[in-house]
C-alpha cells in the first residue's frame, strides 16, 4: 500500500469524564476500500464517526482527508472535501419528495444552493443525474413521493441516494440495514454492491453475514480501542475478537 490514503484518523482520543470512548484510534482508508467497523454495542463506533465528521470534538488526534489536516474545519467543510456519512436512524426531510432530496444534494455539491431563482425541475443536468441515481437504487417509481410515505427500507435507500448525490470520496455508512425488515435487505445489499468502485467505504454494521459478504477488511472496536484490523477471515479466527464480540453473534441483529 504505497498509495496515499484518502482518509486517515491518527490517534483519535475522546474522553468523557475518565472514560475513553475513543482510545487512540488510528485508521486509514484507501480509494476503493470496503471496510467494516464492528464491535459490541457501546464500543464507540458511532462516536468514532462523529469524531471524524467533526460533530464531536476529539480530546486529541487528527483527521486527514487526502493528506490534508481538517481538524480546523467545520463538519460542512469536511463534507465538501468528500467525507460523507449516512445516519443510523434515517434523517430525512419528511416534507420533501425523494426527488427533492437528491436534487438538493446535487445542487449543494455543485455549490448552487445559494441561488434565489430557478427550480431544479427546469434544470436538465440536475434531472438527468437525479434520474440516474434513483434508477441505480430502484427508487425511480417513488421519485415524487414524500419520504414519510415510504417504507423504512426505501428510506434507507434514500439516505444512500443522498450520499451518492454528494459524490463522496469517503463514505461512512452507519448501520445501513438497521431497522430494515428482513425481506428488504437484499435490495439494500445490492445497492451497497453497486457503490462506485473507487469510493472508500467504511460501514458500521451489526449483521455479521452482511459484513463478511461486503467487507474486504474488518476493523474491530472494543471499549473505544481498535483491537483488530485485517482480513475478515482472520477476524473470525482471532481469539480476542471472539471474546469481546463474536459471543454476541446470536443477538447481533438489533440496532444499537
Amino acid at each position, binding site marked *: 500500500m504505497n498509495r496515499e490514503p484518502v482518509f486517515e484518523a491518527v490517534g483519535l482520543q475522546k474522553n468523557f469524564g475518565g472514560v475513553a470512548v475513543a482510545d487512540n484510534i488510528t485508521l486509514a482508508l484507501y480509494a476503493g476500500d470496503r471496510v467494516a467497523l464492528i464491535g459490541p454495542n457501546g464500543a464507540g463506533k458511532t462516536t468514532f464517526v462523529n469524531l471524524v465528521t467533526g460533530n464531536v470534538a476529539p480530546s486529541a488526534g487528527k483527521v486527514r482527508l487526502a493528506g490534508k489536516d481538517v481538524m480546523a474545519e467545520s463538519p460542512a467543510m469536511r463534507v465538501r472535501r468528500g467525507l460523507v456519512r449516512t445516519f443510523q436512524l434515517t434523517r430525512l426531510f419528511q416534507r420533501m419528495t425523494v426527488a427533492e432530496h437528491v436534487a438538493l444534494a446535487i*445542487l449543494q455539491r455543485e455549490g448552487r444552493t445559494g441561488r*434565489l431563482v430557478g427550480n431544479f*425541475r427546469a434544470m436538465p443536468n440536475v434531472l438527468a443525474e437525479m434520474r440516474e441515481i434513483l434508477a441505480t437504487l430502484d427508487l425511480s417509481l417513488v421519485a415524487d413521493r414524500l419520504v414519510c410515505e415510504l417504507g423504512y427500507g426505501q428510506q434507507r435507500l434514500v439516505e444512500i441516494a443522498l450520499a451518492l448525490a454528494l459524490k463522496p470520496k469517503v463514505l461512512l455508512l452507519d448501520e445501513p440495514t438497521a431497522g430494515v425488515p428482513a425481506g428488504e435487505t437484499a435490495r439494500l445489499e445490492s445497492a451497497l454492491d453497486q457503490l462506485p468502485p473507487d469510493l472508500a467505504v467504511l460501514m458500521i454494521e451489526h449483521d455479521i453475514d452482511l459484513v463478511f459478504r461486503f467487507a474486504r477488511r474488518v476493523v474491530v472496536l472494543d471499549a473505544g480501542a481498535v483491537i483488530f484490523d485485517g482480513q475478515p477471515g482472520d477476524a473470525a479466527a482471532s481469539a480476542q475478537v471472539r471474546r469481546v464480540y463474536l459471543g454476541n453473534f446470536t443477538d447481533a441483529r438489533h440496532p444499537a
Partner: protein
Amino acid sequence: MTVLENEAETAHKQGAMRLVAAPMLLLTLAIAGYFLFPDNLALLTRIIAISLLVLSIDLVTGICGVATLGQAAMFGAGAYAAGIGAAHFGITDPLAMTVVGAFGGALAGLLSGLVMLRAHGLPQLVLSIAVVHLFHEAANKASRWTGGSDGLTGITPSPLLGLFDFDLWGRTAYIYGVFLLLLTFVALRVIVSSPFGMLCRGIGEDATRIEAMGGDVRGTMLKMFVIAGFVAGTGGALGAISTQVVGLDTLSFALSAEALVMLVLGGAGSLYGALTGTVTFMWLEDVISAANPFHWMTIVGALLIAAVLFAPRGLYGAVEELAARIWGRR
C-alpha cells in the same frame, strides 16, 4: 436527453403558469376588496402591510424553522427608515420611501440574525424578544429623530409616480399596497422554490442533516433573515406611506406576537397560509371589536384555540386537506 430537456421545458412552463395563477387570484380578491369595502380601504391597506410582516415571519419561522417573537423589529425599522427619510431628509417619493424602508428592514434583519443565530431553541426565542425590545427602546430614546412616544409625524409622501395623490380615502395607498404585495408574493414564490429555498426548507426540518450534506446553515439562515427583513421593511414603509405617521407600536413585542399568531392561524410554512391568517385575523378583529369592543379579545382567543385544536396546520392547511379529500389528490 431531449426528453429530459422537453420535460424540463414543460416543468418550466407549468411553473410559470402557477406563478401567474396565484397573483391573478390575489389581484381578483384585491379588486373585489376595493369595490366591496370602499369605505374601509385604510383597513385593507393595513392588512396588506401586516401581511408583509407575516410573510416575513413565515420565511424565518415557517420555512427555516426559527421561532421568533421579534419580527416587528424589522417591520418597525422599515417604517422608521421610510418615515425619517421623508420627515427629515425630504425623501418623499413613495417608491424611494419604499426602497429606503426595505433596506432599513433588511439591515434590521441582518442585526436580528447576527444576534439570534448565536443560539438555538428557547434561548433563541428569548433573544428575538430582546432584539425587538432593544429596537423599541432605541426608537423611544432617539426621539429627536423618531418623535419618541408621540410618534413620528410630518411624513407627506409626494404623488405616486408624480401622478396620483395619496387621497383621503386611501385609494392610492391601497392600490400601491396591492402592487407591493403582488410583487413581493411573486418574488417570494420564486425564492421559496429556488435551490436556496429548498436548502432553507431542509434547514427548517433538520439543520444537522443539511450540515452533513455540506450546507452552510448559519450563512443560509442569515441570508434568509436579510430577505425577511427586506419584506417586513417593505410592509413597514407601506404603513408609513399610507398612515403618514409611525408609532412605537410598529416596533413592539405585541405586534411581533400578534403577527406570529396570524401566521399560525393561517398555517406556517406556506405563503398562502401567511396571507390567509393575516386577512382572517385582522378582519375578525375588526368585525368583532366593532360588535363587542370590551370582550373581542376573548372571542378572538377562543377562535384561535379552536383553530389550533381542529386545524393544526392552520386554516390554509385545513382547506388544502379538505380539497385533497374531495379531489383525491395528495
